[in-house]
């Protein structure tokens, strides 16, 4: 089997008495979509935050592309190739959709310490950014400030920004949240193709999407992974059915 792109070993994070992350180990292999599911408050977003570097684990190791990234901050991990989206859209709200994506293109190209060339006349920024917006279906809305986009469009913009980084792995935190059935279906199709570019660690509540997309699923309950397996294995797992899936399976 190929080496995992992302490998998490025995990660622990407590908030006071609450074990938000309780000895979690999981990995993300090349070309796969690994879905992370679990009830609200299970610690899914906390786990994503630790992987992306937004918060520090109490103990455990995070290896990305064979390198321990535990000591790196969020920006440094992003530069290594971790492209994340946020559960609640986190955008530069005064900037247009285009400029939000251009910021990612600029970051991927390296230096932000260039003081004189106007970005809006820099086709090495605008063209790749427009191409990415085209891919997610936002090209027509490129010039609108992020704050004026609809909820669904903001979700797509989150994905577009991650795409523009050209990352080695995606961390998507509930990309479908609040998208509606039509939007979810579109995005499911889109993510399906995306795994060929880079593997995806996908936190998602939309079970139709998860079952359609996931190569493997890990189930997180009270900070612990209670099962990892293929879609069929997870659907059949009695503990998972009791703890989370219930009527979905």
């Amino acid at each position, binding site marked *: 089997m190929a080496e995992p792109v992302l490998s998490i070993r025995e990660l622990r994070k407590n908030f006071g008495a609450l074990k938000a992350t309780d000895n979690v180990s999981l990995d993300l292999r090349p070309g796969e979509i690994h879905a992370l599911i679990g009830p609200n408050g299970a610690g899914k977003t906390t786990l994503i935050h630790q992987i992306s570097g937004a918060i520090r684990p109490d103990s455990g190791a995070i290896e990305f592309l064979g390198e321990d990234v535990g000591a790196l901050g969020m920006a440094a991990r992003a530069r290594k190739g971790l492209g994340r989206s946020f559960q609640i859209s986190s955008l530069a709200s005064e900037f247009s959709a285009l400029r939000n994506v251009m*910021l990612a293109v*600029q970051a991927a190209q390296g230096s932000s310490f260039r003081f004189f060339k106007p970005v809006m006349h820099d086709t090495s920024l605008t063209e790749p950014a427009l191409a990415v917006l085209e891919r997610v279906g936002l090209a027509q809305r490129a010039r609108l400030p992020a704050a004026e986009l609809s909820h669904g469009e903001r979700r797509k913009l989150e994905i577009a920004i991650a795409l523009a980084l050209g990352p080695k792995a995606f961390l998507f935190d509930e990309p479908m949240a609040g998208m509606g059935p039509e939007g979810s279906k579109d995005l499911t199709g889109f993510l399906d193709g995306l795994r060929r570019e880079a593997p995806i660690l996908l936190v998602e509540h939309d079970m139709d999407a998860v079952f359609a997309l996931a190569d493997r699923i890990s189930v997180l309950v009270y900070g612990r992974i209670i099962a990892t397996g293929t879609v069929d294995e997870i659907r059949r797992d009695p503990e998972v059915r009791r703890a989370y899936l219930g009527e979905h399976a």
Partner: protein
Amino acid sequence: MTMSRETPINLVLAALLFAMPFAALALDEPFYVTLATHMAVLALAAVGLNLALGLGGLVSFGHAAFFGLGGYAAGILSTHVLNMQPLLTWPLEIGASDQMPVIWLVAIAVSGLVALAIGAISLRTSGVYFIMITLAFAQMIYYFAISWPAYGGEDGLSIATRGAFPGVNTAVPLTFFLVCYAVLVAVLVLFALVRDSRFGAALQASRQNETRLAAVGIGPFPVRLAAFVLSAMITALAGALYADLNRFASPSMLSWQMSGELIVLIILGGTGRLFGPVAGAMLFVLIESVLGGLTERWQFFLGLILLGVVLFARGGLIGLVAGKPRHG
């Protein structure tokens, strides 16, 4: 630079400020030449702060430190020239100069280094803590200045002759105005370039959403530090001109009231707007001279105006006329 609804009002402001000393001389009111110079220099100081505060959202309540450092650079160099003392005797002898470009370079270099140190510490905090820590640093420098008798202490430093500029006579008020105005225009061009550049994009993103900036792989700290240093250098340049204007480097240039005044200028004119500081400085100096002539309590009315702006016109004068900024 892009044309926008702001551009016409910016051009009008630039033309008004430029025309003011000529009109004053035509009407035989030379005092207004000095007033216009005062406006230009204060505007320049506020353009500096606007880079950190307007673009980066860094509410520095200590920019008087850099304004004052610029002023003292002019004052100290002038004193050494007058007394024919070298500036440094060890490890190598460096003579003082009364040339403005040299004074400006010294002001910029010294304030840049000090800002690097202050910023490196202050920018580890944010919000109210950042405001307080920048204030604390500025106060330290203020008390240092008033307790250092070699350079005037509480009395400040007089400048016997205004710094010289190659090819012109800066003792002529109109000429000195034109020097200040040219510097202001050059720095405004620089501000617009920086705002529209990659660095400017990162800086403005750091104000809007620092998590987003980090998530694309740009660490906010170095971006903010660079902006803080650049901002301080511009304000120090204004300080050097201010001291030359008054022929006096006063400790009050370093006081917290000065820091507050710079923030007020920006809020009056329009935070983050290219000509916000220019509009703010013109209005402020106008209020000070018109109302100040009528009543000693002119600051009460300034307060009322500020209150009106904060409550009803958040975008300041520029926002009132040109509407919200567009980011393309």
